[in-house]
């Protein structure tokens, strides 16, 4: 459990810092590295990667949107109606899911790689 939380925290923090300068997919590298060094079973590694970036992205998106009085999120939810049915909640979830899946699979890859040691 301790490792699980630690992995989440480290993945989130390193993703945050790296994304300030590098493209979004750097989260895969961050999640991979954290999972490589923090020993967990595959499922937990995936979950910690998934949860870390999902939370990071959703929370950051939410903060940006709140400061914007939600002007844009409503429009983009409408723009992507085919996926979101116009719901901003769905748009947040979609955002989180995308980051989470990439990060989760990268973490899974990291933990599988660690086992080759």
């Amino acid at each position, binding site marked *: 459990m301790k490792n699980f939380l630690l992995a989440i925290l480290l993945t989130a923090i390193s993703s945050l810092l790296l994304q300030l300068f590098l493209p979004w997919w750097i989260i895969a590298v961050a999640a991979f590295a954290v999972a490589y060094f923090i020993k967990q079973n595959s499922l937990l590694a995936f979950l910690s990667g998934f949860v870390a970036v999902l939370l990071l992205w959703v929370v950051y*998106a939410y903060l940006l949107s709140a400061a*914007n009085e939600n002007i844009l999120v409503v429009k983009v939810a409408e723009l992507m109606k085919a996926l979101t049915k116009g719901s901003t909640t769905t748009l947040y979830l*979609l955002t989180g899911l995308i980051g989470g899946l990439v990060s989760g*699979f990268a973490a899974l890859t990291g933990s599988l790689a660690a086992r080759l040691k």
Partner: protein
Amino acid sequence: MKYFKLLLSLLITLAFVVALNTKFGQIPPFGKFLNPFTGFWQNAENVKAWKDEEANLDGLKDEVKVYFDDRLVPHVFAKNDEDLYYMQGFITAKFRLWQMEVQTHNAAGRVSEVAGENALESDRLQRRIGMQYGAEAAQEFIAKDPESKKLIDAYCKGVNAYIKNLTPKNYPLEYKLLDYKPEEWQPIKVALLLKNMANMLSVYEYDIENTNFITTFGEENFRKLYPDYWAGDDPIVPVGTKWSSEAVGSSSQQSNTEIRNQKSEMYANALQKPDEINGSNNWAVNGTKTKSGKPILCNDPHLQLSLPSIWYEMHLVSPSMNVYGATLPGSPAVIIGFNDSISWGVTNAGRDVRDWYKLKFKDDTRNEYEYNGQWMKTEMRVEHYKVRGAKEFNDTVRYTRFGPVVFDETFGVAENKKFLAMRWTAHLPSNEFKTFYLLNQGKNYSDYTNALKTYTCPAQNFVFASRSGDVAIKEQGKFPIRNKATEQGKFVSDGTTNKDEWTDFIPSEANPLSVNPERGFVSSANQHPTDSTYPYYYSGVGVYEQFRNRRINEILTEGKEIDVEFMKKMQNDNYNLFAQEALPVMLNCLDMSQINSAFKPAIEKMKAWGYYNNPDSKAAVYFEEWWMTLREWLWDEMLDPNNPMKRPNQVVTIQLLQTDSTSDFYDIKTTRQKENRNQTVTYSFQLAMQNIMSKYHHPDSVTDWGNHKATRVAHLAKQDAFSSLNVYNGGNIGIINATNGTHGPSWRMIVDEGSMKGYVVYPGGQSGNPGSKYYDNMVATWAKGEYFETNFVAKPEDLGVKRLFTSTYKPK
């Protein structure tokens, strides 16, 4: 197994990353677009975080301060003109970069670089009509004027200074959505932007359509349905004004017989024309008509309504000028506006400045064409298209002395051996920027005439008022001298001789002008510039306005003690003069015995109507729908896409309905029987009412005009989510408030020379970012017919407290 799992997991991860980083068709790359660090979330502008800022910029000469007021209008204070335009470029890019680029990409035929193959045909058309070619000619010409060049270069430097500091994170939203990035801003783009305006405004010719009509229906019908002038017309220069000059040098020597022969042709290709409602109003009253004793000037250009708006509001101050008004994002200077001494505005001149010539090529190589009995070489221009997601496409366009060959075997409906070249004033070398630069710092009437002198295209009616009390209006542009006897340029011309070739242009001094007329006002609304006594022949068959002009002149003639409130009301006037003249005639033709009784209340509503297309009017819904249907069925002979024609104008249509009950045109082609006037008018009424009922189901639930018309201010990439939909307001074509479903007054301006105050509004907002509070914040004000008083001051100290933030820029 360990390795297999690892490999599988790695592949899934990589597949996710690649897929989410790639654009599929219209679908943006989700990873790039949705991540909150660089994706669209970053464009969610913080509504409160406006902070003063300071920066050092490469290429500035001196310090510039920019004060943003509570509508995000920048007040730029520079110490020299170069810095002023540098900053205009910088600030415009900051708020409108994507729009600037997409408009010039469109003009240059480069949309397929972003949008892919779907845009290729429209791109080809842009190049084939010589948009890029014309822009290059203009740019070369501008470069010969050192001052213009210097200032345009400064503007571009400013735009590029902004672009250079951009990172993917702060790209405008549309770049993220369409997944591409901004490119450097070059002087050619300034020229392209003006060509874009020319392509919207100086394309009112119907050579092909007229030729098709006269071939199909004969000369007698043509004379009747397309008169050069009509009774009760009210031109820009008041009837009876004496002309100071005789016409000089008319160029065509063609005989009437030759012309007739040319007319027996049909052409399947014609260029689509802009929406018929495109046009504008402007007027200025002098001190004899105003409360203050000083002139008041008004202008509202009617264009396609868009977000971001075509206009960007600015206040530009340097030691040589203090000017305020509407700028075109991408071009330096104020286009419509006022300074501390004068004000000016524009409406479009509907005059024909584009002619089509039928060429004869020697052989299938199309390398040589016949001209005065000799073979002349064409010049080839190969146009390259870097189509996104497809192979590069090359297109050869042949240029002749009559301009580019637009239609040939490779473009347009295949029509063997009908090669059409296009001569257009937008291809002439010209420097429109200079006109606006001079107007921006103009002090009086003579500065105004001097500024206009060289203005070429798109031809405009420039209205003018000065603080010292003058009002004037001049139709300015370059107009070819045309032969009246042969109606040169009204039909497709013969490109095998010089007989119909342009040889000279009407001297600028001879362009229609009205200065301080006795009636105390000048005005224009895209009508005839003059009556038929004007010494030079011109035509604008079918496009000259017939209603707004008369309504404007009627109001201004009666107006006394006019003030700004009066003008506000007038610009938003919804009186439908056309309906007043057409409806009684239409009602008279109704065969009441044939009318479905459920539709009779609609007739009562129309009879009781005061002819105002106010948003809450129901009668306007019935009338407009009926008229549209009637027009469709009355002129159904002209809807064959392979034989394009222009439908006669409203005045002619009313006259036909009034005076002729049996014309062949009443017949509805798709029915077996032969309809007469009353049958067609009745039929169209029934049909229109059925359409209304199928939409609203019950007579009582028919909505009002504002809801029915449901004006949309559409995003430039046609994204509904970024558009203002269902904007509730009145008006329509032919009405001073010329707002239909998609077009309308794109900028309303009133300038009171007495108080030196401007009142402006436009249906949009200062920011081009859909994620900004200032993206569409003025739409509601515009729809209500209200205005903002401009913060027009000489010194920053006088700007007052209504200020969002201040930017200070210093040289690096």
